[in-house]
């Protein structure tokens, strides 16, 4: 170990003990990325062995019109702005039909807070997808959208969730968490959901049997202590509900946002966030290296730094590409498998709820 300050953390990890806030800070402050990675890899092996998950999924962003103007967002448009779009439920149906012959098991739906669309639209989108592909898992709407829908309809969060579940919702993505810090919120996303509300909505979803993901947006103006606090809050909720499926740290892509003066997170930082998350979130089963965001190269390396999931073959992921992500839009199942196998891991295809699927289905998507 190059950085001996990590020794106590190392001993705790090997003993399976929970890490404290101070331990987390020590990890962030250290440059000994290989030791941090080694510890994270150890935890990953304990939890998932050599299994590395991927999924065949489809992303649908039904509208990019948003009443908020989060500073870090390159996705939203105003109604009259160039590039603003809104898909009709029928267009959503077409999108799903376009790939109906591919062995997709998860459809991921998130979008803007579009004042020009009725509450029913958001429910219809889910219903439509469910109709066209009844077997697919629908992972839709961040907590930010849930709160917005409640506000728009005058319903409670709980009623909104019930409507969505009734229409076919199976799981919720972890977006909109950003960093649980009032300081950062005031500076970057004033109008967005508070961290207490984000936590409360996920808790509510868990209580209804809806599994959710959690995220952390890093690489902007956040501080290390804010990130560790964020992780600990997620860990506390997970202790309570056990409803989180996976955690994915998301690197902020400054290009095309109003924070374009900031620099993109480097590979060292990406891997550190993956590894520190794996170490702090001892009650999360999975840590995801989202290749569309990290790039294929770094996502592959992240598998040796604590990540056990590489997400999937994605079509039309607009959010990161509008923010200048250079990764290609799609990888075939064979490419994903090869990427995983090459590093000595066992590729396991999963659905949104981490059930193993499609072990021997036709390679249509390849």
């Amino acid at each position: 170990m190059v950085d001996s300050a990590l020794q106590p953390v190392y001993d705790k990890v090997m003993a399976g003990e929970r890490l404290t806030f101070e331990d987390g800070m020590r990890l962030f402050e250290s440059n000994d990325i290989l030791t941090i990675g080694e510890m994270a890899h150890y935890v990953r092996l304990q939890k998932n062995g050599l299994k590395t998950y991927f999924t065949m999924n489809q992303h649908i962003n039904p509208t990019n019109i948003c009443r908020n103007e989060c500073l870090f967002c390159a996705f939203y448009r105003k109604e009259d702005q160039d590039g603003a779009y809104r898909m009709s439920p029928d267009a959503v149906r077409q999108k799903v039909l376009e790939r109906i012959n591919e062995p997709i098991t998860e459809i991921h739906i998130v979008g803007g807070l579009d004042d020009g669309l009725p509450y029913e639209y958001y429910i219809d989108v889910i219903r439509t997808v469910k109709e066209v592909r009844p077997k697919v898992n629908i992972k839709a709407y961040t907590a930010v959208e849930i709160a917005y829908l409640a506000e728009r309809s005058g319903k409670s969060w709980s009623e909104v969730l019930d409507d969505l579940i009734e229409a076919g919702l199976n799981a919720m993505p972890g977006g909109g968490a950003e960093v649980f810090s009032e300081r950062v919120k005031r500076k970057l996303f004033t109008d967005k959901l508070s961290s207490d509300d984000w936590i409360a909505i996920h808790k509510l979803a868990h209580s209804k049997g809806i599994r959710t993901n959690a995220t952390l947006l890093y690489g902007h103006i956040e501080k290390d202590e804010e990130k560790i606090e964020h992780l600990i809050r997620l860990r506390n909720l997970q202790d309570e509900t056990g409803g989180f499926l996976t955690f994915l740290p998301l690197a902020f892509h400054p290009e095309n946002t109003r924070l374009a003066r900031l620099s993109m997170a480097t590979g060292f930082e990406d891997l550190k966030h993956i590894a520190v998350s794996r170490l702090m979130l001892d009650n999360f089963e999975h840590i995801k290296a989202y290749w569309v965001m990290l790039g294929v190269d770094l996502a592959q390396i992240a598998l040796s730094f604590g990540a056990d999931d590489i997400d999937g073959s994605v079509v039309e992921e607009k959010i990161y590409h509008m923010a200048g992500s250079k990764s290609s839009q799609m990888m075939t199942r064979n490419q994903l498998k090869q990427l995983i196998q090459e590093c000595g891991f066992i590729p396991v295809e999963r659905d949104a709820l981490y059930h193993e699927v499609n072990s021997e289905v036709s390679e249509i998507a390849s």
Partner: protein
Amino acid sequence: MKINKSLIEYKVREERRLSFEEGLFLFQQPDLIWLGKLADRVKRRIHPEPIATYIIDRNINYTNICVAQCDFCAFYEKVGSGKGYVLKKEVIGQKIQETLRLGGKQVLMQGGLNPALKIDFYEDLFRYIKTNFPTVRIHSLSPPEIQYISRISRLSLKDTLIRLKAAGLDSIPGGGAEILVDEVRQKLNANKTTGDQWLEVMETAHKMGMKTTATMMFGHIETYEHRLEHILKIRDLQDHTMGFTAFIPWTFQPDNTSLGGEKTSAFDYLKTLAVSRLMLDNVPNIQVSWVTMGAKIAQMGLYFGGNDFGSVMIEENVVAAAGAHFRMSQEEIERIIRIAGFEPHQRDMEYKLLEHREH
């Protein structure tokens, strides 16, 4: 003795040389962090200061006309294709002037094997450069070019090098090595210069006191055994001459080449970098290749045996033609080196640190 992880760990700790079979064991290891930690240990032994170096220089591709047609090359034009060029020395002079103005100290001139350019072309060019820009270092002409110049100028290799050196050539880049195994070179259609001829150019140059680098292009048709043979050939020659300053493994860029295929992975790259650091115990510097791997992976390369970030200012037609489009400024390179926990330091071709940074 049976090769296992603890034997290798022991040998690395005791600074023992690793064998071919041990190298193969390393290549077959999926445990990336284990490899990284070993390579990092060796790197820190050779470079105890937390510094990562880089150089400001400029690549000038003085001609793209080439009689060889290597399958992995997206750069060359055949003689008489109509798309070939040879840069005029005034144009090269202008580029050098810009380079100096931007704080660069060196030019890296490489080009095709152009039958129209005999030794007097290079002598004239180098003299022109040294007369007009006496401070600039000429780090130019890879071994295939030197070997070809000697052939078409009907000179011995030694005389060719003596004349080039007298005209101003300071050091030689390690390009054109690809994989120094003729079986592989033949398949790549790159055997205009054989592996032995490549090594002979370097040996001759080293014996004249010139420093050179060495490269390895991997991720095409070669096996791990071929990579190791390559690495060991460099190590053997280095034992005799100590003329190599750095080893630069880089990945084959398949776009627009007749060989085609897929780019090798980041995992393979970091692993190969680490194995290079571990096997080449007598080569002081290992350079990461951000031009082919991008900034994120190159930065991590500093933890997998690499201590040098290569060159900042590039005009790299050869690699750009094959689909590598990474660009970085000095500021950006310094930023990512710092974030990785190292102090960025500008260096010269001999890997001496330059004291004063100019902006």
